[in-house]
């Protein structure tokens, strides 16, 4: 068959270019189907986890005494309740808990640790096969978070130091907890046998309750939440629901999936640009042949079919291989999901989705080919035959000879000038390479910026707290108020402390627009000492002012200057919204006022403090953890690191991949492009060589060419990352409470190292791929 013969000949003739286009399509299809698979895997596994654990729809945490009969009675009467249970949790202070043989306690951990026994009817803690877990006396099951973050193994020992004695337990399992799995949730449950639980209860008297409900209709969570909060039932602690659990569980991997898919789209665009480039170059080479084919009477459709068939075969094979490659890669990508959430058998349709994603890539390739091939219509037989192989169909060769006459080169080396001039003269052609450089800069700089931002101590301003050297957290417990005031006294007397600010979070009741009551956690104190950045407005300065977190303001539909009604000391009080800030902690829904806190419903106490210049931070942190036991003492960096650790890790990996991808793409396209330019310019190069240009001179011309383009690409890519890229990241993160991420830019890395890296690789690629200039000589023309 003639098609196959032409196809084979053509592939052999253009091995290099074909291979590159092929690889790009493959890579794009690969990422596309991997991303699709990740999403399928995530939602599928998440559903499996939630159904296996029978996760509650509504949970009220409560630190304080409880009246179970009243609760039982309310639950029985409420028609929305299907099942109800009260879970008691022994709260263990981090300083009392030792994991493994390290001998280092968990006191610096941000996690609130609770010991529980297995529930009877729902909210099961699961093993790694997603089955309800049972442990024997002397054994304990530890959350997977610790498996990953503390490098624990089965058989390791866990010690709990009580008031009178230390209890040792053997870790016999790792557990999945639908509610508290992800590292972004600051509570972790450990599972004990009932007998150990009872034993430990004698030593650790502090406990917290989880008041859990499964509803008859999960769609009515909001209605139920309101009903519960209005009921006067215990609510000293956060209120959470199953939607939040799901979001938190999906967050980290969801971001990865989104990044992978965005990356795949970018690569697809590059693949399409390459494809366009290759097809046009091929048509240019084949100009005369096409003329001959037309002259001997082949129809336009026939000729088009030859080319279309070629790219159809190429695209189909690449997409298929991309899909197959993604199958083996899926496990690596979904490692985290498998660990934290577990796998679940997928349905036939779910298996099909990644394949469809790869097929989509193929279809886009095919469609673009059809569009590009419309150029064939423009070739006339006579013209093609007469013009011969030298002529092109890519438009006029030299437009604007008069721009930038050599006279203007006074300041430049003439070769540098010629190179730069060439860029402007043949701008349409060079624009593609500039665009690629822009792209590569963008995909490198954006994650670098974001990683820099999230690892910077200033990221704290997206966590709803001001910057300070040390943060002290004291959770609700026995005689906490007294301990808190002792602590303040101690800090006040400490000469090493330059300034400090106590902040108390307590619950208030708010009247919503239609007169219904709603509970809101409000932080009270002086917010001027450790100011946070406000998206709009500023810190509350008067008693009738309130600052809302971004998500809270969005939920309540409030803007700066709007008012809301808060119950203070039993009577409603009009508050004015004075500021909106970003907060990715506590579900992103918080508020701040300078009103005195509500002593009846304190959730937690914190103190932010800055040390004087002479003080030793580490020593001070040790001193405070001893002194203020069981308060948790963290510095800002470890606070961020512990809260966002796994997100940071993953982002670090993504950044590395993006840098590698950016470099590889720029190298590939640079060489591809220059090889084509060199062959196009062969006669001009030969002339220059004949009149005394050395190879070095010509190299300088092409280097100036690519470096000017790279400079433009770097500039635009950076500007784009810093503006729209930042916007894009903000949109992604606004779901978590940070609506206006401002990149904290590390100028050394982003503006010096990365550009230098790109410049180095692009220069190298340029020099290597124009080695053919050696062969161009006007003698070759003479010899024939």
């Amino acid at each position, binding site marked *: 068959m003639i098609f196959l013969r032409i196809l084979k000949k053509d592939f052999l003739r253009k091995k290099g270019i074909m291979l590159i286009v092929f690889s790009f399509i493959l890579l794009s299809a690969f990422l596309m189907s991997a991303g699709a698979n990740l999403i399928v895997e995530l939602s599928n596994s998440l559903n499996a986890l939630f159904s296996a654990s029978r996760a509650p729809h509504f949970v009220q945490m409560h630190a304080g005494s409880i009246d179970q009969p009243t609760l039982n009675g309310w639950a029985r009467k409420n028609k929305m309740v299907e099942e109800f249970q009260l879970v008691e949790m022994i709260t263990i202070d981090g300083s009392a808990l030792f994991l493994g043989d390290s001998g280092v306690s968990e006191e610096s951990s941000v996690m609130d640790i609770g010991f529980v026994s297995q529930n009877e009817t729902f909210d099961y803690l699961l093993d790694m096969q997603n089955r309800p877990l049972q442990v024997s006396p002397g054994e304990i099951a530890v959350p997977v978070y610790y498996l990953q973050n503390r490098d624990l193994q089965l058989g390791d020992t866990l010690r709990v130091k009580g008031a009178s004695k230390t209890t040792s337990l053997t870790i016999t399992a790792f557990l999945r907890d639908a509610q508290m799995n992800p590292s972004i949730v600051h509570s972790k449950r450990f599972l004990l046998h009932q007998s150990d639980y009872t034993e430990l209860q004698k030593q650790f008297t502090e406990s917290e309750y989880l008041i859990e409900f499964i509803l008859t209709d999960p769609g009515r969570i909001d209605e139920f939440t309101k009903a519960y909060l209005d009921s006067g039932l215990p609510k000293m602690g956060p209120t959470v629901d199953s939607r939040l659990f799901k979001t938190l569980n999906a967050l980290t991997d969801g971001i990865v999936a989104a990044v992978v898919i965005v990356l795949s789209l970018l690569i697809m665009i590059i693949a399409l640009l390459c494809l366009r480039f290759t097809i046009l170059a091929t048509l240019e080479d084949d100009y005369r042949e096409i003329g001959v084919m037309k002259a001997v009477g082949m129809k336009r459709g026939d000729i088009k079919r030859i080319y279309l068939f070629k790219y159809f075969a190429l695209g189909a094979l690449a997409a298929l291989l991309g899909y197959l490659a993604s199958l083996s890669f899926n496990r690596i990508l979904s490692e985290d999901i498998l660990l934290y959430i577990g796998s679940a058998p997928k349905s036939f349709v779910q298996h099909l989705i990644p394949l469809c994603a790869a097929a989509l890539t193929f279809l886009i390739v095919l469609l673009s080919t059809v569009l590009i091939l419309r150029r064939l219509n423009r070739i006339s037989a006579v013209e093609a035959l007469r013009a011969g192989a030298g002529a092109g169909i890519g438009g006029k060769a030299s437009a604007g*000879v008069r721009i930038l006459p*050599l006279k203007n080169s006074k300041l430049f080396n*003439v*070769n540098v000038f010629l190179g730069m001039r*060439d860029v402007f003269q043949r701008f349409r052609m060079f624009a593609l390479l500039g665009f690629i450089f822009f792209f590569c800069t963008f995909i490198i700089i954006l994650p670098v910026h974001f990683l820099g931002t999230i690892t910077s101590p200033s990221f704290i301003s997206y966590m709803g707290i001001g910057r300070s050297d040390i943060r002290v957290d004291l959770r609700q417990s026995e005689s906490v108020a007294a301990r808190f005031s002792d602590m303040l006294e101690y800090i006040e007397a400490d000469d090493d402390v330059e300034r400090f600010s106590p902040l108390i979070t307590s619950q208030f009741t708010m009247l919503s627009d239609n007169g219904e009551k709603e509970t809101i956690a409000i932080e009270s104190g002086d917010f001027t000492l450790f100011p946070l950045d406000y998206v709009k407005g500023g810190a509350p300065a008067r008693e009738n002012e309130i600052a809302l977190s971004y998500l809270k303001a969005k939920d309540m539909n409030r803007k700066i200057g709007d008012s809301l009604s808060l119950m203070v000391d039993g009577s409603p009080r009009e508050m004015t919204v004075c500021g909106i800030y970003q907060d990715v902690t506590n579900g992103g829904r918080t508020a701040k006022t300078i009103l005195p806190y509500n002593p009846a419903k304190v959730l937690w106490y914190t103190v932010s403090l800055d040390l004087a210049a002479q003080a030793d931070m580490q020593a001070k942190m040790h001193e405070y953890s001893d002194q203020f036991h069981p308060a948790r003492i963290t510095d800002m960096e470890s606070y961020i690191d512990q809260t966002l650790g796994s997100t940071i890790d993953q982002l670090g990996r993504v950044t590395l991949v993006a840098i590698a991808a950016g470099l590889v793409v720029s190298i590939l396209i640079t060489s591809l492009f220059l090889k084509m330019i060199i062959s196009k310019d062969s006669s001009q190069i030969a002339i220059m060589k*004949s009149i*005394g240009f050395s190879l070095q001179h010509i190299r300088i011309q092409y280097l100036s060419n690519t470096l000017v383009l790279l400079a433009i690409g770097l500039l635009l890519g950076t500007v784009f990352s810093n503006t729209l890229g930042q916007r894009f990241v903000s949109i992604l993160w606004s779901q978590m409470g940070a609506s206006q991420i401002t990149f904290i830019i590390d100028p050394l890395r982003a503006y010096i190292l990365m550009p230098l890296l790109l410049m180095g690789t692009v220069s190298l690629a340029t020099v290597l791929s124009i080695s053919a200039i050696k062969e161009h*000589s006007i003698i070759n023309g003479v010899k024939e």
Partner: protein
Amino acid sequence: MSILLETKQLNKTYVVGKQNEVNVLKDVDLKIMRGEFVSVMGPSGSGKSTLLYNICGMDKMSDGSVLFNEKELSRLSEKELSALRLNEMGFIFQQIHLLKNLSILDNIILSGYLAHNRRRGAVKKKDVEKRAVKLMEKTGIAELATNDISQASGGQLQRVGICRALINEPDIIFGDEPTGALNSKSSDEIMELLAGVNRGGTTVMLVTHDVKVAAKTERVLFMLDGRLVAEKHMGKYSGNGDLKAREERLSSWLLELGF
């Protein structure tokens, strides 16, 4: 008169196909004196152009030696050869070979600027421009300076070629069939220009098929099958009415050689 260029036992072999070697130049011994006006004639494939490209260093000789301005070409690096072509040699071609992305003026001054690049002290960009304008006036193309090369005739373009070859005041101008693609009127004009250049002291060496062209040169070399087989001293061409007689003398000599 001193020797500008001398070849000894110059050989050039091309490998054609897998094993066939073609000996294009065979033991060529040649001397060219400063200020001479030399032409090389011979049938197609006799090695005329190959000789030209080997003595200017554009092609690599297989064996023998080429001494130009007391420099042995085979010992020069690629960079030194380029510098030699830039500063001490000028070239004009049948196909003219101008850079299509540059205007006519820029084609001429480019080599001058490049020379400025290499020898910053010795060459000033301003002088290059002045010289280019003067050369264009001399060759009658001054009004074309800012034109695109597609806006000029073949004869005009070859004048541009001559201006380009002269911009760095070379010791020698090599011409590979410089009038081959021109009509006879333009051809005559170009030859008059080259004769003028030669009278100014620049050595000129041309490869040509055309008796009318060769008749205007001082010495005619004849090549056959890669060897330099004969030469004829024609004496200085004064530009007067003796052209007809010179042509006849040359033709009969060529006839004797069987050309």
